[in-house]
């Protein structure tokens, strides 16, 4: 594999990770810790929204993020023909 292609592959890999980690940060640290009191002013059924993110929602989002990552990386691997 030539160096240029390897660099492009790596760049796309980093972009994907950064996008997903941005969501990871906003959901856990943003909704669950930094802005939790603000979100708590919104009540949905029995949950205050901030409390829900802190004790439930963030974990669901984490799971979804990893599966999205695995799927997108597989597509990128194929695009650059670096699959095993």
């Amino acid at each position, binding site marked *: *594999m030539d160096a240029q292609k*390897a660099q492009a*592959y*790596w760049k796309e*890999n980093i972009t994907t*990770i950064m996008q*997903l*980690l941005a969501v*990871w940060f906003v959901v*856990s*640290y943003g909704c*669950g*810790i*930094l802005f*939790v*009191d603000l979100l*708590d002013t919104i009540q949905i*059924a*029995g*949950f*205050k929204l901030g*409390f*829900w993110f*802190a*004790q*439930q929602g*963030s*974990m*669901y989002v*984490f*799971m979804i*993020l*990893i*599966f999205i*990552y*695995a799927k997108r*990386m*597989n597509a990128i*691997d194929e695009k650059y023909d*670096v*699959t*095993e």
Partner: protein
Amino acid sequence: MDLQTLIYLFVGASFALYIGIAIWAKAGSTKDFYVAGGGVHPVANGMATAADWMSAASFISLAGIVSLLGRDGAAYLMGWTGGYVLLAMLLAPYLRKFGKFTVPDFVGDRYYSDFARTVAVICVIFVSFTYVAGQMRGVGVVFSRFLQVDVNTGVIIGMGIVFFYAVLGGMKGITYTQVAQYCVLIVAFVVPAVFLSLQVTGTFLPQFGLGGTIAFDFDNGVQTIQQGTYLLTALDQTFTDLGFSIPYTEGRAGVWNTFLLCVALMAGTAGLPHVIVRFFTVPKVRDARISAGWALLFISILYTSVPGVAAFARLNLIKNVQNNDYATWTAECTAEQEAAINAVRAEGGDAARMPCAGNWFATWEKGGLIGWMDKNGDGKIQFANGAAFAGKPTYTDATGQSGERMLSNAPTAAPAGQAIENELYVDRDIIVLANPEIARLPNWVIALIAAGGLAAALSTAAGLLLVISAAISHDLLGRVIFKDKETGKSKMSEANELMAARGAAVAAILVAGYLGINPPGFVAQVVAFAFGLAAASFFPVIINGIFDKRMNREGAIAGMLVGLIFTFTYIVLNVFVEKNGFIIADIKPTGIGTIGMILHFVVAYFVSRATAAPPQEIQQMVEDIRIPRGAGAAHAH
């Protein structure tokens, strides 16, 4: 069948299963022993990782922590799950491509330095042993409560079982045993959680029950909260009524420390060697990625149930004990009383406050995990804000007016203006273990919990012991002490290394057993150590090794040492020398790993830029790690 027979049956059957698997999956080579031959299916690996990860602390203590801390418990919930996102995206696929056996392998090879390798080995051993001590203690506690043997006998039985499958089977035996252990522990956790959710909220899943409404009128001692009120609203109201200054769903630790703790737990999770090594066992890079997803899915089944269990337990406890008469409630049941309870339950009624329904309370009191001091002399239990008495309960031999164990602790006065004075001490670790009894769930559920608690503790202990044995036999003996100076390879033969690995596992089990029987008084505090050190050492050093091609030996070693020494010193000063005597910027010792990690990154960057670039072949190796093609199986050297 009576409870004791059921417990023997459930625990015995699960142990037979683990041993059967160990015999079936006996390791024949070092590759089998260290990485299960590198051929584990990603879903099976996800389950094994989940069992490995979820320790006695997750199974027994986590719900208790969340129940006690309310919303702040989220730092643990998010910290111990969010780390898997980092692991999946930043570490696992590249380490799998690297394709060796251990974390010190990566550190030593990537930074072309046996000094770096040795520092990593020492860290692995220290971090893993602190963790193991807690597990063996967990095994002892479960044994002593449910099998009616003393804690030490319990620990020795546990050692025997782990010895069998970890020493014989190595990673191969452990992985398949852990799949079985995951199944046992998750059923054992979720079944009572569902029962409780149905009982308290009428909702099947605890994840939804947490946001549901209570299924009964709830008398908290100050007022009766109507059926149909949201569970969390009822808890918040009760907290206010009982004098707690902050309701259940609001934070008390502050944003700064919650944030630091959460970062340290996430980076620590991603940096713990016994978790990382799981991703060496799958066949391909793409399997490593998806396997982290499966692991988190399996972990989250338990973790998302925890907040529900925590809230149900808190409400149940207050409902059942508040103003209940100690003598009649905790007495041994007569046949008539038993029949009366069963009659109420048969009609779907709540029997938890009836005479003799609180016999569990006396049992745990005997075990020293519950204390009651009848301060107002009315013979009834009161629960409210504030400690009932100073310190942990110390019992005298005397029995009180109502038959309770008398305490020699100094009583604490209730805060001014509080309607009810607290008389109750409950150890947070009993929340999960006692829940089924508190809620009077069927006996087989209690037996299941015993088996589940043991599965959680044993699976984690085995994984840790294996990491310790690999660090000694593979990294220390094979790659440092018996290294051939000319070829850089190990002078030990494969058969000798396998024998050394088994010997190291035996030694590790003996040390772990010793720590379980004679636990250092600070087991709870050393957990901060394990996570703080992993966050300040392994996590940044591996990230740099993959994402920064220019990172060299000097930068990595400087970073590791600064991160380690800083974190280590801060924890020792504030935990062991003088409790919180050396606090900087209001940072608690539990969150200091985050600062250590930042220091590591900064120091490593500047030192590496001021010194020579790594050799060409190392830069080539980094290029190679980044691309999945050509991973092949994990290989020795």
